[in-house]
Structure formats: C-alpha cells, structure tokens
C-alpha cells in the first residue's frame, strides 16, 4: 500500500529559517550569510569589515566552526556582538543553530548580522538560515576552477568575492578563465576582487555592505534561497 506524502525533507530547517527572517525583520536587522572554503579569508575579511564599519553601524557576527572559539576571539577584538557556533562535526550551519546564536546577541541594537558559515563550498549552500543575502567567497590559492566546480554557490549568491588577489603574481591562477567560468554559469554575476589582508578592493566591498544595509526590504518574505 502506498502512502503519498510529498513533503520537503528540509521542512524543519526552512520553518526555523522563516522564524529567523521574521525575528530579524522585526528587529530591523539585515542578515548576510557568508560562505567560502576553509582558509579563504572569511574571518580576516570580517575583521577588516568590523574595524571599518564599527563606527558607522552596529554589526553582530555569528561565526560557525566545527570546533574552537578562535574566530570569535579574533572578531571580539573588533566588535562586542560576536558569538561562536560550534557544530561539533557538522559541515554547515542550520537555521536552528543560527536561531540559538541570535538569542545570544543584542539583536535590537544591531543593523547588520553577518553569519560566517562553516568553511565549506558545498553543504552550506543548501540550507536557508533566514538571511537576506548570500555572499559566496573564493580565494586565489584555491585555484581558478572553483566556480565551475561549485555552480550552485554561483547561482544562488547575491555577491561573489575573489579574495587574496595580492597573491596573483605568486601562484598559478588564470583570472580571465575564472571570470569566464563565472560568466558561463551566470553572466550577470556580481564579482568583487579584493585582498582583505592588503586592503586592495576592500572599499568596494564596504560600499556594497553599506548599500545592502540601507536597501529597503522586499515587502514579502523572499522564497528560501
């Protein structure tokens, strides 16, 4: 005997994501989900971002890792509203973990919440956290083939970053090929090339963040990205 079901297996995650979206909306907080490989420079970018924007707007960060509170300790030097989420082996953050993390932050005092996902280009892409935008981050030492190998991140990101451009003279990386591969997946992909550590290109990223925070929300809750 067949029992028809037709139900999303990620239903529980998506319900928590919608709750997060509603909570963030009520608190007037815009939320970014930052996704990139381990070592691509997410935490360094956030250190620079917090240090530059801290005087302009209150920013909070939830930082996800399998283990340690090292990232939270690094970021806490630049910002008071930081909380670490340890997944204990989990390869991505889910909406419930983010909900618990949000509960540890002074949400009503914030304008922007950045969720630094667990370093991974694969699993985090499929989980809606309740964010308003997704930022996909690549870096030069990873190689120029990463967009072609991870098309879903390219398709679903509102902005793509290529970090560590200061290393371009030192490692094999075909920048034109990287751009071509992006364009083969999505010719309207927004890409910013920068070096978080040297500061090159950082201002364009900060401008993007400022515009993102200032932009009016869509009237209806966006569909789960």
């Amino acid at each position, binding site marked *: 005997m067949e*029992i*028809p079901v037709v139900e*999303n297996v990620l239903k529980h995650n998506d319900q928590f994501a919608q709750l997060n979206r509603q909570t963030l909306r009520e608190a007037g907080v815009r939320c970014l989900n930052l996704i990139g490989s381990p070592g691509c420079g997410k935490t360094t970018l956030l250190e620079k971002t917090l240090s530059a924007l801290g005087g302009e707007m209150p920013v909070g960060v939830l930082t996800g890792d399998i283990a340690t509170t090292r990232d939270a300790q690094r970021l806490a030097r630049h910002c008071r509203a930081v909380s670490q989420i340890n997944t204990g082996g989990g390869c991505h953050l889910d909406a419930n973990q983010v909900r618990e993390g949000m509960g540890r932050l002074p949400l009503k005092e914030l304008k922007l919440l950045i969720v630094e996902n667990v370093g991974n280009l*694969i699993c985090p892409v*499929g989980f809606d956290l309740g964010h308003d935008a997704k930022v996909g981050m690549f870096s030069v030492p990873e190689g120029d083939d990463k967009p072609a190998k991870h098309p*879903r991140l390219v398709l679903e990101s509102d902005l793509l970053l290529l970090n560590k451009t200061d290393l371009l003279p030192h490692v094999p990386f075909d920048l034109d090929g990287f751009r071509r591969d992006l364009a083969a997946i*999505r010719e309207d992909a927004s890409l910013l090339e920068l070096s978080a550590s040297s500061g090159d290109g950082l201002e364009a990223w900060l401008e993007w963040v400022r515009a993102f925070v200032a932009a009016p929300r869509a009237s209806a809750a966006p569909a789960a990205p």
Partner: protein
Amino acid sequence: MHEMSIVQSLLEQVRSFMPGRAVLKDVHLEVGGLEHLDGEVMQTVFTALTDGSELAGAALRIVRIPVRIRCRSCGHEYEPEDTAVLLCPECGVVQPEILQGTGVLLKSLEIEERSD
C-alpha cells in the same frame, strides 16, 4: 557531508507518517540535481540508522530530478548537460533561472499491513 543530517530528518518524517500496524517497505525520495548529496552515502546512512529499529529492512529509493532552467532573456526552457555551462541553447545568453533541481522531497512510503 550532510547526508547524515538529511537522512535523520527524513526518518523523523517517515516515522510521523507510519500507521501503527505497518511494516515499511520503501521510501521514495526525490533529490534535485543541484543538491550536493551522494546517493550511495545516503543508502549507507539509511541502512545504518534503520538497522535494529522498527524500520529495519526498508529500502530507500532515490530518483534524481534533472536541473531545469528557464532563460531569463528569451524564456526558453532547457535541461543543461553540464551545470557549469548554463548558456541558453536558443539565444546564447547566460541568464538562468532554476525551475527544477534543488530540494529533497519525500514523495511516498510503501508499506505492508503487519500480519501478526
């Protein structure tokens, strides 16, 4: 590797739909072609998590749903062979809207009434 958490969610869902006096035979699952999920790993996890439970012996039947794209420029719909090359075969523009190919859907359960 998030097959484990997906299969755990799936089994919670399956249990919520199981009538009291029934034996689970098959779980029919649809997995989008853009989902980063390995079917073999899901099978292994499914067996490991059902073994020794009331669901032991059930089979997980996975159907991959192909990626389907609509071109935002000319409206043509197509199924790309390679998800890293999404240009529209009709107009040559790369402005894909994903119509199908994401998500994990529990479609149905096949059960047998318990005879005892």
